[in-house]
């Protein structure tokens, strides 16, 4: 019991250390640059405590739940030997985790405003909502596809650099063709799709697959799924902007 408490205390100290830079930056700018008092001091202390507790729980849960399940599923799929089911799973994981992502919903809503103001769609709530939903499904589909491509790469042992470079070339081509208003949003959509729970799961899946397939190296083959998931949305969002 004492040992467990000590371990908990130690990991909370670790979380405090993770948080310290933000506290210092905000404190410095507030006190020295803007020369403003810090409002709601007690709120900040309570909030900081929550963040530290939350981060500690999250990391515990990561190693107990998210990592093991990702890896055990990767192992099970590899042993089962059914590529089709594995790819269906990969697609569902990418699509399902992205379509409900709050950050993506926010970006899609803002994008529909840009489109309405830019005259790409008519400026009514209905048109904007359908544009925003279309965008969300486009991004979610592209993330699903990305995980499928990434898993195929691990299975076949293709080297990642040429695939990523191919993706870059497509982004550049699409940039030249897509309407100017959509470019900023398209570029951003690559970054917002990968959430805090998806990342550990997808990473564990990739590393687990690469470790259970003979001839694959978990370091060079296991990573890279997230990279695809942040590249395909850019291409697809620009395509969406061209079609609508």
């Amino acid at each position, binding site marked *: 019991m004492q040992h467990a408490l000590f371990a908990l205390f130690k990991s909370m100290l670790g979380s405090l250390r993770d948080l310290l830079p933000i506290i210092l*930056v905000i404190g410095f700018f507030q006190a020295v*640059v*803007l020369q403003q008092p810090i409002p709601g001091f007690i709120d900040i202390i309570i909030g900081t405590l*929550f963040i530290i507790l939350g981060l500690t*729980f999250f990391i515990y*849960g990561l190693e107990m739940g998210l990592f093991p399940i990702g890896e055990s599923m990767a192992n099970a799929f590899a042993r089962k030997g059914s590529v089709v089911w594995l790819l269906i799973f990969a697609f569902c*994981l990418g699509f*399902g985790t992205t379509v409900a992502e709050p950050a993506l919903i926010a970006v899609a809503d803002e994008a529909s405003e840009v489109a309405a103001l*830019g005259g790409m769609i008519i400026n009514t709530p209905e048109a904007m909502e359908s544009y925003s939903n279309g965008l969300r499904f486009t991004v979610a589909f592209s993330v699903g596809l990305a995980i499928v491509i990434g898993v195929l790469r691990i299975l076949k042992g293709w080297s990642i650099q040429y695939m990523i470079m191919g993706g870059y070339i497509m982004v550049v081509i699409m940039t030249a063709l897509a309407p100017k208003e959509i470019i900023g949003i398209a570029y951003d959509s690559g970054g*917002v799709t990968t959430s805090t729970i998806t990342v550990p799961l997808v990473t564990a899946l990739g590393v687990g697959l690469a470790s259970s397939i003979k001839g694959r190296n978990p370091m060079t083959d296991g990573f890279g799924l997230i990279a695809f998931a942040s590249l395909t949305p850019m291409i697809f969002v620009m395509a969406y902007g061209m079609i609508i």
Partner: protein
Amino acid sequence: MDLLMRILQMIIDTSIDVLPIASIIFGFQFLVIRRPIPNLKRVIIGFVYVLIGLSLFLLGLEQALFPLGRLMADQLTNPAFIYGDAGLVPEVINWKDYYWVYLFAFAIGFSTTIAEPSLIAVAIKAHEVSGGTVGVWGLRRAVAIGVAVGITLGTYRIVTGLPIHYFIISGYIIVVIQTFFAPKMIVPLAYDSGGVTTSTVTVPLVAALGLGLAETVPGRNVLIDGFGLIAFASLFPIMSVMAYAQISEYMGNRSH
């Protein structure tokens, strides 16, 4: 009492966010794999921990850091702060006037990345898989420097109004060149680190900074120029992580 309600509300919200992921995982586990999960009880407790952890984390951010961070982004981009109390914005702005904004962008980019939970997860995994060659802190610092540089350049772009794709395409060219020289084992991890950095902590604060700038700098359009900071924040870590591996390798070779 009020706080308790908010904690509960946050846990419910997070559960709804996690529901699709959980149903996909358990659905496939029971319908397709049809094999018992090893240590099922432990895994479920782990999931509950992740849920509670993420809820507390988000609530704490909403309570303590986001309001202050957003307020700061507003104040720092306010003409009254940059051009003195009168807030008279000159016809032609000088990008150098925004030095505090760049410094804030750099500092907030670095510090929020250090606290980003998904980056911590990837760093733990990479450390484990590489047998200790990739250090947890080394990777996190390298990524954080990349994000800091990226966001600083991104704010500079908003101030000057240069087109975003010039920066991104140049970034791609640098990434491609670096790929040929960087140690092979780091390349996939470096590509991944671009996507993992921008999540719970970084996005809200950085978005506030971008929108604040695009609103106040004359000649910028919020809807067009306000976007794009996240793109910078996901491109530059790729370079900094490869650079980190190249420097580590170089130092390693020299000491032999």
